[in-house]
């Protein structure tokens, strides 16, 4: 049952195309009907969007390649300035027919130049009679280039007066693209997410040759059962499937179970997959480490993930600086007197608490504080005298570069810099514990 029908192309090619793009038949046929025949004028610009790994790039690439339509394919992240982007399009265009001979590099700074050069190139390549396709992947980057680039691409057909179609691929909706000044509205096409059935079908397609398709699809079934709740990303699932398959095959290889014995196989793989979800999927440990782990079973507990190394060692005064910064960030200024003055007797606790706002400071996040306050708190929490040496000041800046503190507001150094403490409560409590400082006693929120 050929889903794809088009008069311009031979049925065999279409059938082949259909086998290459499973679960995307309707989108492909839609595209084909827009494209029309080779010499027919197509819609000037098409905007395709859909979630991560819903096959946008893949479908476009296979479609254009199998039908052998003239096209260039450019990634906008890679070519991060408009100049690079335009030059890349021209270079690909020139290299299309003459692979061997190195095309002379033409500088192309503005869109005006591009239009002119593009026209020349189309003529020189003999493509006047065919629709030429420019595919811009990750098109959301276009918004960050000069204001004229996106509108100009959208009406490139009109500007060049050539048979050209621009296809934009993006993960976000068209509404977020529309510039203030208005522009030509492209034809938008949505690629929906793959359903679980689709995923199953696609994943089963590339089963390893030494095992039967049924065996592999049973494996995929188990895999999806574990991972579908947390991850619908096709690429990620493919990656996970490849990583864990050898483990799944183990009983078969050892001869303990045959390929049909799904229950036994499931028993074997399920805890393994659960562990994979906690580690590999979160990139706590890398996939190569994971593979090594599978080889030598025994020392599974040895490898610690990335987050196991959360402990940070700091010099003694840096710890106190960080604690002082934390206190300054989360305590209101007027409470400093109560916490750090020896004889604060006059402020009664009840009286003091009356003014208490209901919201916790920890919910509001850290507040900026001036350098002087930080140093004043530091002097009062450190037991012995601290000389205000250059080392102390340089430690503050190094804490900023380590992103444990952050500088706020104007960056005028003379003008009393203001900082914020960006570490979490757990972190600061761990730090405080190493220097025997009871931080909870000094925090206004925990009074």
């Amino acid at each position: 049952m050929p889903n794809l029908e088009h008069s311009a192309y031979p049925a065999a090619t279409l059938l082949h195309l259909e086998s290459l793009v499973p679960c995307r038949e309707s989108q492909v046929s839609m595209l084909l009907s827009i494209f029309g025949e080779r010499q027919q004028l197509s819609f000037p610009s098409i905007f395709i969007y859909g979630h991560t790994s819903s096959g946008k790039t893949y479908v476009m690439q296979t479609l254009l390649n199998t039908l052998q339509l003239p096209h260039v394919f450019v990634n906008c992240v890679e070519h991060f300035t408009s100049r690079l982007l335009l030059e890349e399009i021209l270079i690909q265009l020139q290299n299309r027919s003459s692979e061997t001979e190195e095309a002379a590099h033409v500088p192309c700074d503005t869109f005006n130049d591009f239009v002119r050069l593009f026209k020349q190139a189309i003529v020189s390549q003999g493509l006047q009679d065919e629709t030429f396709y420019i595919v811009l992947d990750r098109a959301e980057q276009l918004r960050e280039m000069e204001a004229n680039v996106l509108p100009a691409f959208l009406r490139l057909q009109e500007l060049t007066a050539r048979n050209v179609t621009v296809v934009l691929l993006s993960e976000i909706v068209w509404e977020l693209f529309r510039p203030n000044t208005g522009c030509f509205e492209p034809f938008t096409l949505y690629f929906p997410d793959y359903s679980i059935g689709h995923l199953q079908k696609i994943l089963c397609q590339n089963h390893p040759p030494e095992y039967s398709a049924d065996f592999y699809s049973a494996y995929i079934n188990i895999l999806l059962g574990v991972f579908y709740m947390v991850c619908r990303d096709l690429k990620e699932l493919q990656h996970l499937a490849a990583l864990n398959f050898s483990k799944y095959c183990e009983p078969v290889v050892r001869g303990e179970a045959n390929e049909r014995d799904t229950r036994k196989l499931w028993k074997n793989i399920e805890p393994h997959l659960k562990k994979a979800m906690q580690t590999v999927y979160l990139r706590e440990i890398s996939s190569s480490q994971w593979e090594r782990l599978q080889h030598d079973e025994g020392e599974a507990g040895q490898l610690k993930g990335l987050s196991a190394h959360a402990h940070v060692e700091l010099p003694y005064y840096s710890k106190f600086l960080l604690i002082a910064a934390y206190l300054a960030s989360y305590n209101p200024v007027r409470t400093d007197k109560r916490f750090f003055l020896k004889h604060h007797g006059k402020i009664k606790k009840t009286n003091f608490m009356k003014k208490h706002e209901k919201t916790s400071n920890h919910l509001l996040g850290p507040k900026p504080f001036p350098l002087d306050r930080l140093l004043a708190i530091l002097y009062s929490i450190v037991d012995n005298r601290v000389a205000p040496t250059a080392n102390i000041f340089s430690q503050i800046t190094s804490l900023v570069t380590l992103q444990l503190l952050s500088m706020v507001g104007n960056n005028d150094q003379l003008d009393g810099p203001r900082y914020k403490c960006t570490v979490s409560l757990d972190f600061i409590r761990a730090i405080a514990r190493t220097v025997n400082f009871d931080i909870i006693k000094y925090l206004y929120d925990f009074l």
Partner: protein
Amino acid sequence: NQIEEDLNKQLFDNLVSFLRRSHSEFQEKTTEWNCQMKSREIPTAALVLGVNVTDHDLTFRSLSEVLQNRVTPYVALLQAKDCPGIKNLMQKLLGQLMNCYVDVDSEEDDYVQTSQNRIRCSMTSLITWYESVTKTPSKKRTSSRHWQSPPVVVIFKDMESFTTKVLQDFIVISSQHIHELPLVLVFGIATSPMIIHGLLPHSVSSLLCIELFQSLSCKEHLSTIIDKVLLTTQFPLKLSEKVLQVLINIFLYHDFSVQNFIKGFQLCIVEHFYTQPLSVLCCHQEEVKKRINSLSHNQCENIRRLPSFRRYVENQPSEKQIALLTTDGFLKETVQQLLDDLNVYHENYFPVLRCLHVFTSSLPKYPLGKQIRELHCACLENRVWETEEYESFLQLARMLNKCDLVTMLQKCVEILVSSPGKEFDKTVEKLKEFLTQFQKLEGGCALSYVPLQIKLKLFYNGTNGYHFLWYILTLLELKESRRSKKLTKFEMLRFEVVDYIDSVVRNYLVPADHKTLHEIVYFNTASVLREHLNAAPRVALHTALNNPYCYLKSQALRSDGGSISNKAPDICIVYKLHLECGRLINLVDWLEAFSTVVTAVEGPNADAPSSDQVDDVIHARFIRAVSELELLGFIKPSKQKTDHVARLTWGGC
């Protein structure tokens, strides 16, 4: 200076061994990925280096050197401050890679140089460049060291400081081209690897194949350096307790930077040889004789003036005293002998120190410090056997179980045998004798001590209930001894061992400043070092402005009680006046006060007209002084009130 060189070598050895390990993993990884091409992950090494950022530069430099020598000529080092955007990053990357290509073969120098300006900074040009470099089979001499297709290593020096966007873009781009360009990333991380997840979203971090490498912690690094450099007899110069304490404090309290520690040590060397005239004698033993013979009369006088030498002289019989104080020749002989003594003392000191450390480091609560440097400091400070900690050490040592005691004794024997000192033969023999005695006891006592051993194990593990356990143990001990009425053989032997160790310690671990002529080899002035290394700019500025005599040494400024002298520089007067004000300073009042102070001398014969009209010259001087203060950051113009300036410092009054 040879010591510096040695220091660096030591440091590098540490690093290279670490790098070799990480490098071998790289190799493994990249080959693995070559066969697993279907995945688009970029092999990445997350290098956790600790917070001592100042050391990282050296680490990375040697890392790239090692990589260039062993793995690949294509190494690029990127720094966050050079790469505010993806464009700059690519430019930097291409520049570094192509330059290192130029270094490999210099014939094509001009060609590359000229084309560099026109080169497009994109991944495609990088790939074409890479292909052209690897495909041309002409330079076989380099490729023998590297592999067939050497990976391109990109090192991000300070991961934390890179902006998220730049990193993300770069990773996405390079993952597109991982098939054409074997890229390996190295992230230098100062805090914790969690930062990777903080910086990169899942979609990006899933493109990486991250493996973690932990570098040696800086504290360990420091201990090895102290161990190899300070606790040997190899280098003639030694640090006294206070100096070492200052250096270690700066390290622990302030920066964790081994680099700075080494620099401090170098400063000590320079200071010592510069300020101490007798430091000529601080050299290797072979040269000492020559140098002593060439001492001039003045230098001999210098020796006579040394306090430790004076003490030595006073303890001599009177005719010898006279000879020492008058004849240079005799003095030289004695000095030679004394220096030899000092050398022998060092030769004995360090092995015994290490032995003692073997004991103390395995006792619970570490009575004399966990690190050997702490023990070293304690021994240098005063007679270690007079301290309370030492008492508790002996007590604990008397309670050791047999296994531990035997292993410790064996370790001590090893240390002593490997040491160059000549006096240890007897000690070693004695220790060996103890060991054989223990072996004889084996059959009889092994069983009866099992319960105690278990208790002691508990004792080591429990850290918080330390005192409690202590009591229980002493009680048990008492009960046991009461029951058996007399000490077992093992206990007798144990007491003997501990007493013997005590005697050894008393014999060899005499603090250095009790030794004659210690001034020659020990660097002593900790205050100088502290001043140099732990600068206090605010304090210095305050003293300069508050008490100009301190720096200017002009007699006119000498008599400074609390009043403001008009002979002081203008800026000092202005500064002192501003200390008396609050947060906002009225400029007019300030000016008036200033002119009163300046014209104070002419005060008695005051002219009526000049008193209410401020002299133009004084006005100008005032403005100049105030702007100087503003430049120094003490005040700034305020917008809250006209004619006022705001103070930026507090706590002056």
